[in-house]
């Protein structure tokens, strides 16, 4: 059977891949909104290490990051009065007169042994102060990551918020229509570059969720024509099936300590409830027990509570329950008749969700202490919000002409951008943790 039908065998293959590069549907970025008075900054082209740098323009990556945040306006290169690469070569007045508040200069140098070092300096043109200066060392393959780390430092030093440029996102890409769909699980840098194909299947892949150490993904795969939950080590592609019980196996999310998954199980009777699965022991603890749909668990950062979607009161609303046996759920959302798919910010103060807003499904954030709800997105079928680890930005998916694309919005609602695939659609973005 196997040897007789190699073509069919390959066509049905589910490929678990050790971070294979590159995936072939590139993402294109477009900034959709920014603040009205962005901070003017000049990011001067860095001294290059040719050919070890592989042609990567580090300053371009930094400029792209900072402009994409909507908080900065970078000086065009052809407007620059000079191209210094050392702080001592910077004539502050030239840059101040060009209208810049800050200037970044830097150098990529080859070290003995073949590693690359990225040195940079951030200067305040008004005070002359050296605001930051740092060196990042890594392999030539990690140069793009080093550039994102430069962006993180510049962002934090100027705005006082931990940058999240040197982080990764996972998402699902879909091409074609049933029965010939192609589902791909993809990991990329937060700016959509540096894509790696993690898994490919003809059947749906859903709900990717990062482990807190950023090394593993949990996800749902229908590769056996029924749902099952897997955890996969991203770097090598090694994976393990952790739940293929009767009925629904869905919505896995990693606990903050990395030892457990909260997930949804339906059983043969088809009644979805929330469970917690200990990965080491396979011990399963039931968290909710209700004839309604209980699904889409999200951990509070302290690991003591789980937020989830339930339609026990009619339409879907978000509830909170302790993980100890016998705890009773408490309803959290009260505005509107559709609130689903909760996610918590890292500080546990903000709840992101999908809300039905005058006929449109949109991303909203509820302040958990005041209860205030703000709708942040503007589409008609927005879904799957996921917080950046710094809590200041949310990535989600929206629909553009019947096609899924990714979008970000800052929690203050002021800035945003879109990440579009050249072919097919992309959806279910999950923002990974800070690199450790």
């Amino acid at each position, binding site marked *: 059977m196997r040897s007789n039908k190699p073509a069919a065998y390959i066509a049905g293959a589910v490929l678990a891949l050790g971070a*294979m590069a590159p995936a072939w549907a590139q993402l294109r970025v477009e900034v959709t909104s920014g603040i009205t008075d962005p901070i003017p900054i000049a990011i001067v082209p860095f001294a290059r290490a040719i050919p070890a740098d592989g042609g990567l323009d580090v300053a371009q990556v930094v400029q792209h990051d900072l402009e994409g945040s909507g908080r900065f306006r970078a000086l065009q290169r052809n407007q620059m009065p000079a191209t210094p690469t050392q702080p001592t070569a910077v004539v502050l007045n030239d840059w101040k007169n060009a209208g810049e508040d800050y200037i970044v200069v830097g150098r990529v140098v080859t070290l003995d042994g073949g590693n690359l070092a990225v040195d940079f300096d951030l200067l305040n043109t008004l005070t002359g102060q050296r605001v930051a200066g740092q060196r990042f060392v890594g392999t030539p393959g990690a140069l793009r990551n080093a550039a994102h780390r430069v962006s993180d430092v510049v962002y934090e030093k100027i705005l006082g918020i931990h940058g999240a440029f040197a982080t990764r996102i996972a998402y699902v890409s879909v091409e074609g229509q049933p029965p010939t769909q192609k589902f791909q699980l993809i990991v990329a840098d937060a700016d959509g570059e540096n894509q790696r194909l993690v898994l490919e299947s003809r059947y749906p892949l859903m709900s990717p969720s990062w482990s807190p150490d950023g090394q593993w993904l949990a996800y749902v795969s229908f590769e*056996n024509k*029924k749902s099952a939950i897997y955890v996969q080590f991203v770097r090598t592609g090694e994976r393990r099936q952790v739940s293929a019980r009767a009925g629904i196996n869905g919505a896995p999310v990693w606990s903050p300590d990395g030892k457990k998954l909260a997930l949804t199980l339906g059983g*043969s009777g088809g009644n979805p409830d929330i469970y917690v699965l200990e990965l080491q022991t396979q011990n399963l603890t039931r968290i909710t027990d209700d004839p309604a749909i209980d*699904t889409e668990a999200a951990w509070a950062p302290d690991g003591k509570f789980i937020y989830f979607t339930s339609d026990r009161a009619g339409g879907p609303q978000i509830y909170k329950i302790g993980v100890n046996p016998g705890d009773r759920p408490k309803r959290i959302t009260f505005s509107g008749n559709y609130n*689903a798919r909760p996610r918590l910010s890292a500080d546990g103060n903000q709840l992101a969700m999908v809300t039905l807003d005058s006929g449109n499904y949109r991303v909203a954030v509820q302040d958990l202490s005041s209860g205030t709800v703000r709708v942040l997105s503007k589409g008609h079928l927005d879904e799957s919000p996921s917080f950046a680890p710094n809590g200041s930005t949310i990535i989600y998916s929206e629909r553009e002409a019947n096609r899924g694309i990714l979008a970000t919005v800052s929690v203050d609602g002021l800035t945003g951008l879109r990440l579009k695939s050249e072919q097919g659609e992309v959806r279910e973005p999950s923002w990974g943790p800070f690199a450790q």
Partner: protein
Amino acid sequence: MRKILMVLMLAVALTSAGGCASKKPKPGASQSTEVGNNTADAAGAGSDAANAGNVGSDEDAAGPQGGLLAKRIVYFDFDSSDIKGEGNDVVAAHSKYLASHASTRVRLEGNTDDRGSREYNIGLGERRAQAVRRALLLQGATEAQIATVSYGAERPAVVGNDEAAWSKNRRVEIVYLAPGGQPAPVQPQR
């Protein structure tokens, strides 16, 4: 093209590795023609304990033809899992057929339109599949003949952003399975 070739080559490498490695027979493996199972092994999926008992062929088959039996789709209203109109007749015809063909098995695939959140839609699709399952059981089919799966909004029949498309997607598909496989298990492993 080169990338696609790379993927295919990797697929061959993975599958042949799986063929060599899987000497230990697993329950039901000899009868399974499900490609996904094999590749999952080849890709290093372990923890078969979680999968134990969850065996049996899920290979699709043509199933009975003619009259209402040729109709395999039951449609639903928005936010509803009530079987309506012709759906009742379709379900009745398949119940009758299953009752008189005890070894025939079906998989009920629940689906929703694409509005709202995805995992919640998985729950709604399952609710529809279960509504059809209960109707089949009431009319003579047995539990061992029926498996359910919910694809939620993941496998639309029609792509579109209007009621015409949505109404085609809110559905349960009755899929007949190839004979020879073992009945799907009905015990949840709770």
